[in-house]
C-alpha cells in the first residue's frame, strides 16, 4: 500500500482487516499456547515462508540477522543457567548441564523466533489504516489522534532536515561538542516554533470542516467480500480445532523433571493437521496468488 514502495502482500493485504487480524491472532496465539518442538518448528517454518512471500527474501534475511543471535542466546543460555531436569549429561563450571534444559532452551528459542517473524508479517499486512478501522469506532477521537500523528511524523522529519540545512548555512558546520549541543538546541526550538505555527493552521482547517460538530464516524475503504468470509470461516474453524486439541492436552510437552508428551493418536493427528494448516495458510494463499499471476503471464 505504500506509495512507490514494492508491493508484495497482494492476497492478504486485500482481505478484510478483521480476517487479517483473526489470522495473526490465531497464528501467534497458537504458537504461544503450544509449547512443543513440532509446534515451534512448524510455526517458525510457516512464518518464514509467509514472510519470504510477503516481504521478499532480502527483508526476511534482515529479520533473521536479529533473530539468529537471539535464538543462540536463549538456546545456549538456558542450559547454562537452568539446572532443572533429571537427565544430567555433564558438568560445566561445576554445574550440571541437563538434557531437559537443552531441549527446553531450543524449543523456547524457536517459539520466540517464530513470534518475531510473525510480527514482521503482521506489520507488513496490518497497515495503520487497517488497525484504525478495526479499533476506530470504539474510540473515534483516539483513532484520529493516531492518524494525525502518523501524518505528522514525516512532515516533522522534513522540517527538521530543512532547519538543519538552514542552520548550517548560517553558522557553518558545528565542530566542538559544545557547539554541536548548542546547534541541536537551536534547531529544536525552531522546529517547535514552526510546528506550533503549523498546528494553528491545522486546527483552523479542522474547525472549518466542522470538527467537534457531531460524533465522528470513521470512514474506510474495506469490504467484507465472499473471499474474506471464506477465509474467515477457515481460520476460525481451524483455530477451534487446535484450541480444543490443546485443551485436551495435545500439542504440549512437559520438560521438567522429565520430557513427557501425549502419544500421537487420532486426536493428536487431527490437531497437528489443523495446526499445520493454520501456520502455512498465509504462505499457501500468497503462493496461489503468485501462481495465478504467472499462469496469466502477468508476472512483474
Amino acid at each position, binding site marked *: 500500500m505504500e506509495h512507490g514502495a514494492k508491493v508484495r502482500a497482494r492476497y492478504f493485504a486485500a482481505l478484510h482487516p478483521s480476517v487479517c487480524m483473526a489470522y495473526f491472532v490465531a497464528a501467534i496465539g497458537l504458537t504461544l499456547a503450544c509449547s512443543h518442538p513440532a509446534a515451534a518448528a512448524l510455526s517458525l517454518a510457516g512464518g518464514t515462508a509467509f514472510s519470504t512471500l510477503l516481504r521478499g527474501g532480502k527483508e526476511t534475511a534482515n529479520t533473521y540477522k536479529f533473530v539468529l543471535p537471539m535464538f543462540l542466546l536463549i538456546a545456549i543460555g538456558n542450559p547454562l543457567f537452568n539446572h532443572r531436569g533429571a537427565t544430567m549429561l555433564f558438568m560445566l563450571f561445576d554445574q550440571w548441564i541437563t538434557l531437559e534444559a537443552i531441549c527446553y532452551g531450543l524449543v523456547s528459542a524457536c517459539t520466540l523466533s517464530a513470534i518475531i517473524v510473525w510480527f514482521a508479517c503482521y506489520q507488513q499486512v496490518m497497515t495503520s489504516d487497517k488497525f484504525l478501522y478495526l479499533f476506530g469506532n470504539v474510540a473515534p477521537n483516539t483513532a484520529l489522534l493516531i492518524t494525525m500523528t502518523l501524518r505528522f511524523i514525516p512532515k516533522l522529519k*522534513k522540517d527538521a532536515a530543512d532547519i538543519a540545512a538552514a542552520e548550517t548555512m548560517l553558522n557553518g558546520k558545528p565542530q566542538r561538542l559544545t557547539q554541536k549541543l548548542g546547534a541541536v538546541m537551536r534547531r529544536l526550538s*525552531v522546529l517547535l516554533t514552526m510546528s506550533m505555527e503549523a498546528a494553528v493552521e491545522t486546527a483552523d*482547517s479542522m474547525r*472549518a*470542516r466542522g470538527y467537534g460538530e457531531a460524533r465522528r464516524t470513521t470512514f474506510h475503504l474495506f469490504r467484507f467480500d465472499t473471499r474474506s468470509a471464506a477465509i474467515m470461516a477457515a481460520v476460525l474453524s481451524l483455530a477451534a480445532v487446535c484450541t480444543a486439541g490443546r485443551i485436551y492436552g495435545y500439542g504440549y510437552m512437559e520438560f521438567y523433571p522429565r520430557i513427557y508428551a501425549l502419544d500421537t493418536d487420532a486426536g493428536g493427528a487431527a490437531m497437528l493437521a489443523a495446526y499445520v494448516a493454520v501456520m502455512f495458510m498465509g504462505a499457501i494463499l500468497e503462493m496461489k496468488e503468485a501462481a495465478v499471476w504467472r499462469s496469466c503471464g502477468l508476472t512483474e
Partner: protein
Amino acid sequence: MALVRIDGINFTYAGAKGPALIDASLEINEGEYVLLTGASGCGKTTLIRQIKPELTPAGTREGSITYDGVAIESLNTRRAAAEIGFVQQNPDNQIVTDYVWHELAFGLECMGLSVGVIRRRVAEMAAFFGMESWFRSKTYALSGGQKQLLNLAGALAMDPRLLILDEPTAMLDPLAARELLDAVGRINKELGVAVLITEHRLEQVLPAADKIAVMERGRIISQGEPRETVRNLCRSGERDRLFFGMSAPVRIFAALGREELPLTVRDARLGLKDMLGDKKAQPLSVAAPKISAEPVLNAKELWFRYDAKGADVLRGADISLCEGELMCLLGGNGAGKSTLLSVLCGLNKAYRGKVKLDNGKKLCMLPQNARTLFTADTVLGELMDASDGDEARAKAMAERLELSGLYDSHPYDLSGGETQRLAIGKLLLRDANVLLLDEPTKGLDAYAKLQLANMLKGLCKEGAAILAVTHDVDFAAQYADECAMMFDGGIISRGEPHEFFGGNRFYTTDANRIAGDVAPGCITSGEVASQCKKLLQ
C-alpha cells in the same frame, strides 16, 4: 437575494490600536465568482475570515453580515461548516490525515455521516478532480499542487454553496497554480458554487471573475464588474501600488491611454493589431550585458543523484556567476534547479564535477522556507543573532532592508516580502556575498516583488553575486542580468533576458506574447508600451 451581504463592518483585533477593517461592504450572490485583491496587509484575510464563523479572529465588530438572510453569528454551526468551504494558503498545514482518501472524507466524518454516504461522496470528488491515480497515496508523498487540490476537494466534498480561498496559490509554482485556479473555475462554472478568492495572480483570475473588489488599508476602495473596475483603478490616482499587480494586457493598454482594457493575452494581441494596423516597430536594441569580470562561482559538469541506484538529477550542469550579477535560473518542475542549488552550496556533493568559489567569497543559500532561518522572538533579535550581538551592525542592516519599524515584531508576523528581506539580512550579516535564492518571489505581491528586486539590484551594485531559482518569468525578464534555462539536469541555454526570451514563442513573458510580432525584442510591459507609443505618434 444575495448569498452573503456584508454591510458596513468595522473590525478591530483584540488588543490592537486601530481598526483592521473600516466600513467594508460587499455582496456575494449565489454562484458568483468574486475576486478580492489588494496589497499584502490591507485586510483581505481579516475580511474573508469574518464570513467563516469558525475562523473569525477575536476582536470587536460593528455592522452586520448575513448569510442566506441569517445573521452570521446565529448561523447553525453545522450549516456553517458544510456550506461555507475555506481553503488557506499553506498546502501542507491544512492536511489532517495520512491518506488521501481519508483526507477527502475528514469533513464528512465530522458531520457523522454513514460510511456508505461518505464512500459515494469521496468517489465523486476523486472523479471530479481526476485523483484516481493517487487516491490511495499517503498525503506526505504528494506534490504541493496535489496537496492544495486535495484541500480544495476536501472542502468541496461537504457540498458547499460558497467557497472561500485565501491566496490558495501563494506557495505553488505557476503550473500547479494554473491547475488549481482551473479547478476553482470549473467548480464555479459547472457546479454553480459561489467563490470568494484573494489572489495576486490577476492574469488568470480576472477573466474568470464576475466581480472584483479592491482593498486598501482596511477599506474596500472599489468594486464592481472586472473590466470597469480595472479601468476606474487605472484612471484614478491609485495607480501606483495596485497598478504593479495588474496583468500585462491591462498595463500595456492603460499605459497607451486606452479606454477599453483587455483582460487576456488574446484580446490584447487583437487589440494591438487593430490599433497599429500594419505598422511594425524596429527591433528593440539592448546594450550588451556588461559582464566581463572573471566568475566568482564556477561549476563545471556537475553530476549528481540522490541514491546510488536512482536516476541522475544533474547531468553535466555548468554554471558560472560573476561579481555584481543577478542571474535567474528558470525551468520546469523536476528539471533539477533546487538540486543544483543544494550542490552549489555544499549541502549535497556532486559525484563528478567541481564547484569552485573565489577566495574571500562566502556563499549562502536562502532556503525556500525562509522561516527555517529564524531562531529569535523579535526581528531585532534575529539580526542580533546573526551579527553576534553587535547592535549597531544589526540596526544598520535593518535600516538598509527597510525593517527598522519592525524591531519588536515576531518574525512569524511579518509579510512575505518582509520575511524574505529579514532572512537575506541574516545571511548578509554573516558576510555572505554570493547568494543563492530558491524561489524568492513565491507568494509576494507585485509591490513586494519590486521592493525585493530593488534590494537585490542594490546588493549586486555593491559587489554581491546572486543566483535566483524562479518560476517567475516576468521577474526574470525585468530584473535579471542574465537568464539560464535548466532542462533535464543541465543548463540548455543562457543569455541576456531580451536575447533569452525574445526568440521564444511559448516560454516567455505575457508582454512578449502580446507584442512579439509588432514590437520585436520587447519583453516587459513598459518596453512594449513605449515602442507602441512611438509607432502611434
